[in-house]
């Protein structure tokens, strides 16, 4: 035991050092582990989490708004429901502009690709497995795409290449193929989607409702109505001015969605736009536009024409037109043939360079002409009105009492004002005239005296009272105010010119608004075109209230002015403005356009002269001096005004009243006399106002008649009764009657077997035929009515 112990002790004794080393090393190793673990604890337990927190804070707090917006953008899908745009009607409810539904066709390339992949997979499967009995190979993915591309290209008139290009954008869910597709094309596409060669409905083609705007009368009132831009928003005219009212509010369906299934939908109803009912009358507008076009072509005017027809009792515009015009349905295209020729010339002179379809010069000209044809000369452009302005000078002077109907004026052919000499239109002078004659002669020296008699301040007060310095306030686009010298800068010479309408600028609409005040009892109205707004159910939402802005002159003065102006038409420079059976008042104008030598000729007229219900102002810009007609408003514009009035007045239900002088112009309906004996027929014709008749053949009863029963012709016409004889099928040749007196013209036409209907001036002294409705040498059926415009050509300006 002792030995053992010793051995053990020995062993133990040898161990301590080793053991101590071992323990030390173990302790050191343990210490290293502990220290380094502590380091890891700090890195992984704290540092990394601080970094994560900082990043997370940035995302959830700083970028929260932006990321949330992205989330809702992808999670929600909003589909708009277009509101139906309101229509535009004329005063009688004739539709001038309306919207109809159309379709926008779009592609979902993402879904389309998925479907194509499916088909491809199916094909591959069938290829490896083989086809069962009577089974046909399904369509491949490519064939599927081809089918869609070719069908869409054909139906929508697109290039297949473009469609393929859109199909490539497989990340996209919405690629528009075509906007505003006609309903029937839309229906064809719908049919294609449901029934087609694949045997299943097409996936990836969709249609969305949209609206297309139609303007049934193309050019009628184009400057008033305006047009829409590519996104169906008003770009010009009433369409733009009343955009908010017409458009309505677009509805919205918000769908919260995921990639596969829809969650819920929320609706915001669409509200249809209001409709506009205008004061315009499409017939009167048509008469006016036709008149302007005739006048331009007849007198070779190079700068267009404008016209306004207004109800002087309220300021309601019955028609307002500007020429050149355009087709609203295709507003970028140049419509006017004169402008087309200009454009063609530029194109011929500037051929397109390599790589371009049109030369720059062409495009520049095109733009210039587009703006020209879209301009409404009646409201956008100012001009020096010339003598038509004398109505205002006259009104002011009468109201102020500086002149009265008994005032007299002496005209020597010119007048000295300050250090300038101003000439009269009649070189030799008008001599001694009473006021009535001075107005009828449009005598400049007389009006200069009237103006100077008023004085600068009084004159200027009236210019302001007539609203000429400010915009008219009409509900049309581009309404501008007049341009006048400042009150304290107005010198005597200016006033002298102002008195006969030169050296300042106003728009035709401003002028007619002021003139209406002169003849309607003195009340200045704000001109307007929108009578009322109607909601989609036809309820009136807003109604124009015609309240005079102010009374500028008294009722008595106004009555005097009307009388004096009626005399202008009956016996003065405005004789060509006469309309048989009506009392017309008017004033002619020929105004210099600055110092260019070009003029703007114009005519203002109203009817009936004692109780004006309609007032019209026509201007013709830069007529040619080579038409053989002496350039003046009386010669060039008044006849057209007469023709338009002749259409408008009966249309408005204002009945003509024929005096002795006008008897030849009276018209009546031809009675139906076929089957009557000669005596019975004569009696019946007499009863209807026809005295002249002749018979052809010697049968017992009337077998045919010219003109036919029911035709409205002048009572002076000779009625031809065929007694058992075939009506001659020979055509009559229309003779040239221009330059003949009324009686001679009637005879010439009657001899040719035709019936004359005379319009315009009546009387015998110097009144001659100015134009005829059917050109000479034209062959036409016997008994045709030829309208002859009667008038007088004077050789001095008015």
């Amino acid at each position, binding site marked *: 035991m002792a030995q053992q112990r010793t051995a053990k002790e020995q062993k133990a004794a040898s161990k301590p050092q080793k053991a101590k080393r071992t323990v030390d090393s173990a302790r050191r*190793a343990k210490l290293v582990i502990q220290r380094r673990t502590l380091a890891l604890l700090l890195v992984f337990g704290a540092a990394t989490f601080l970094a994560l927190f900082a990043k997370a804070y940035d995302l959830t707090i700083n970028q929260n708004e932006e990321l949330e917006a992205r989330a809702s953008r992808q999670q929600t899908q909003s589909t708009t429901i277009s509101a139906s745009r309101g229509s535009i009607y004329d005063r009688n409810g004739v539709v001038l502009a309306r919207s109809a539904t159309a379709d926008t066709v779009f592609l979902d390339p993402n879904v389309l690709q998925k479907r194509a992949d499916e088909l491809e997979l199916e094909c591959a499967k069938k290829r490896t497995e083989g086809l069962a009995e009577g089974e046909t190979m399904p369509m491949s993915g490519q064939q599927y795409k081809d089918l869609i591309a070719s069908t869409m290209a054909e139906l929508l008139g697109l290039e297949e290449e473009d469609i393929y290009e859109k199909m490539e954008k497989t990340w996209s869910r919405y690629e528009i193929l075509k906007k505003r597709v006609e309903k029937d094309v839309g229906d064809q596409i719908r049919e294609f989607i449901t029934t087609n060669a694949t045997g299943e409905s097409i996936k990836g083609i969709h249609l969305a409702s949209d609206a297309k705007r139609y303007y049934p009368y193309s050019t009628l009132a184009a400057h008033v109505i305006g047009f829409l831009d590519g996104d169906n928003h008003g770009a010009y005219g009433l369409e733009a001015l009343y955009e908010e009212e017409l458009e309505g509010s677009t509805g919205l369906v918000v769908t919260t969605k995921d990639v596969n299934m829809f969650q819920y939908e929320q609706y915001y109803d669409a509200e249809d736009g209001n409709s506009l009912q205008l004061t315009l009358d499409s017939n009167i507008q048509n008469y006016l536009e036709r008149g302007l076009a005739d006048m331009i072509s007849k007198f070779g005017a190079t700068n267009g024409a404008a016209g306004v027809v207004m109800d002087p009792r309220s300021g309601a515009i019955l028609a307002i037109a500007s020429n050149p015009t355009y087709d609203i349905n295709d507003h970028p295209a140049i419509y006017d043939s004169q402008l087309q020729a200009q454009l063609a010339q530029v194109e011929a002179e500037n051929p397109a360079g390599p790589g371009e379809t049109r030369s720059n010069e062409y495009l520049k000209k095109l733009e210039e002409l587009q703006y020209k044809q879209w301009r409404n000369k009646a409201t956008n452009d100012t001009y020096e009105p010339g003598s038509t302005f004398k109505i205002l000078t006259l009104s002011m002077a009468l109201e102020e009492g500086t002149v009265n109907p008994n005032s007299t004026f002496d005209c020597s052919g010119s007048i000295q004002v300050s250090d300038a000499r101003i000439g009269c239109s009649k070189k030799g002078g008008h001599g001694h005239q009473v006021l009535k004659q001075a107005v009828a002669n449009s005598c400049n020296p007389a009006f200069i005296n009237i103006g100077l008699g008023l004085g600068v301040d009084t004159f200027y007060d009236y210019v302001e009272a007539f609203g000429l310095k400010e915009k008219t306030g009409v509900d049309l686009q581009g309404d501008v105010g007049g341009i006048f010298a400042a009150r304290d800068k107005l010198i005597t010479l200016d006033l002298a010119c102002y008195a006969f309408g030169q050296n300042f600028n106003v728009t035709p609409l401003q002028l007619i608004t002021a003139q209406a005040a002169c003849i309607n009892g003195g009340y200045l109205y704000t001109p307007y075109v929108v009578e009322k707004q109607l909601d989609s159910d036809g309820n009136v939402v807003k109604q124009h209230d015609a309240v005079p802005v102010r009374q500028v002159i008294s009722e008595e003065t106004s009555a005097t002015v009307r009388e004096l102006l009626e005399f202008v038409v009956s016996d003065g420079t405005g004789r060509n403005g006469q309309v048989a059976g009506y009392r017309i008042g008017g004033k002619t104008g020929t105004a210099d356009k600055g110092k260019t030598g070009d003029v703007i000729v114009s005519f203002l007229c109203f009817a009936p002269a004692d109780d004006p219900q309609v007032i019209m102002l026509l201007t013709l810009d830069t007529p040619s001096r080579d038409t053989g007609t002496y350039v003046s408003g009386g010669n060039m514009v008044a006849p057209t005004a007469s023709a338009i009035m002749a259409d408008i007045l009966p249309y408005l239900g204002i009945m003509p009243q024929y005096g002795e002088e006008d008897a030849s112009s009276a018209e009546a309906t031809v009675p139906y006399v076929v089957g009557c004996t000669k005596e019975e027929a004569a009696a019946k014709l007499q009863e209807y106002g026809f005295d002249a008749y002749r018979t052809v053949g010697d049968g017992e009863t009337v077998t045919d008649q010219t003109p036919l029963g029911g035709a409205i012709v002048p009572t002076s016409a000779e009625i031809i009764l065929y007694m058992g004889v075939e009506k001659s099928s020979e055509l009559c040749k229309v003779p040239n009657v221009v330059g003949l007196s009324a009686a001679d013209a009637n005879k010439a036409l009657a001899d040719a077997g035709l019936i004359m209907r005379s319009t315009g001036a009546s009387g015998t002294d110097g009144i001659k035929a100015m134009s005829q409705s059917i050109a000479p040498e034209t062959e036409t059926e016997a008994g045709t009515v030829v309208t002859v415009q009667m008038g007088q050509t004077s050789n001095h300006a008015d």
Partner: protein
Amino acid sequence: MTRDEYRQMKKQKERERRRKEREAWEAARGPMDLPFLLLAMLLLTIGIIMLLSASFPSAQASKDCRYDALYFFKRQAGFAGLGIFAMFWVSKINYHRFEGLARLGIIVSIALLVLVLIPGVGITRNHATRWLGIPGTDAGQFQPSEVAKLGLIVYFSQSISKKREKMRSFKEGFLPHIIILAVIALLTLREPHFSGALLLAGIGAAIMVVGGIHWGWIAAGVTGLASASYLLTFTDVVENLMKAIDYNAARIGVWKDPFGGDLATQQGEAYQVIQSLITVGSGGLLGVGLGKSRQKFMYLPEEHNDFIFAVVFEELGLVGATLIMILFAMLIMRGFWLAIHARDRFGSLLIVGVTTQIALQTFLNIAVVTNLIPATGIALPFFSYGGTALAIQLVEVGVVLSVSRQIPAPKGG
């Protein structure tokens, strides 16, 4: 030596052995660390709830799930139950027993990693061959790299704990371990499984660092990591290098500017990152509410997997997500604290390995979700869907608990 003496000696040896065993048993019978267990269980509970919330839309919409909204939840919960059972079982085992299994464990791990690479054996998904399973069935599939993590932790802990200060030497301390680590990491990279290789390398490196390799290596490693991060963040070097080796270089560009690409990119490579950012960002401070995520409805890919934490952000907001991150941080810190106090080096290193794994996965996962680092697929412990992974995680928690039982009671306690 007499018979008696011999007998006596044998008896003494036997007594000695029994004493040691009793001591060990007594030690192993100590209480397991309650804070670590509770933190792990709390995270697991929250994780499974979030998995249910995040996964039901896709489960409901998927034919593979038989349109059962609870499909993923049920499976995950089943594995969790199994894992908890395994965790307690492992925690009862005296962890020193694992020492003997270390060598076998690493050989099996490497063998499995080789096996998965043999054509026809491994299961391929999304161009990556990462799975093994019973041929012809869906059951029992697992990733060898998951097994390798456990194998690596146990083997390194065993091997390094034995070396003591020899670890400081290059030949004995550094070289053998770096070779084994390289083999495992490269095999994983071959699958390819970049994030798996990264995790294995990180875990191995952590054990080596703590185990006592020369500080020069640590300095070199830290310098290398720092310069790589610098090059990645501020230059195009890494991107160009990745392009050169034909690796998915686009993700670097996406990382730097997720919303910068054209539509095709935004719907393509950048889609996942963009959706993740949208999901995280739309949560705001307080979130849209539990279960009310909108992004999980088919927008966010992998919403119940690698990107589950984005849904946490969206539903619970910055506040909720931060609370969960604090729980993770506490678990990790408690783990390292246990490592510091473990009875022996082997125990310490085991815990360091396991805790590092949890820490790395948590950090990398949340960093990817918030686009702090370029996208790579790393699962979040206790949250991401994946039965085998969850079970192994719980087994690892069991290992930590097992070590914690042998921590001597505080002196004077």
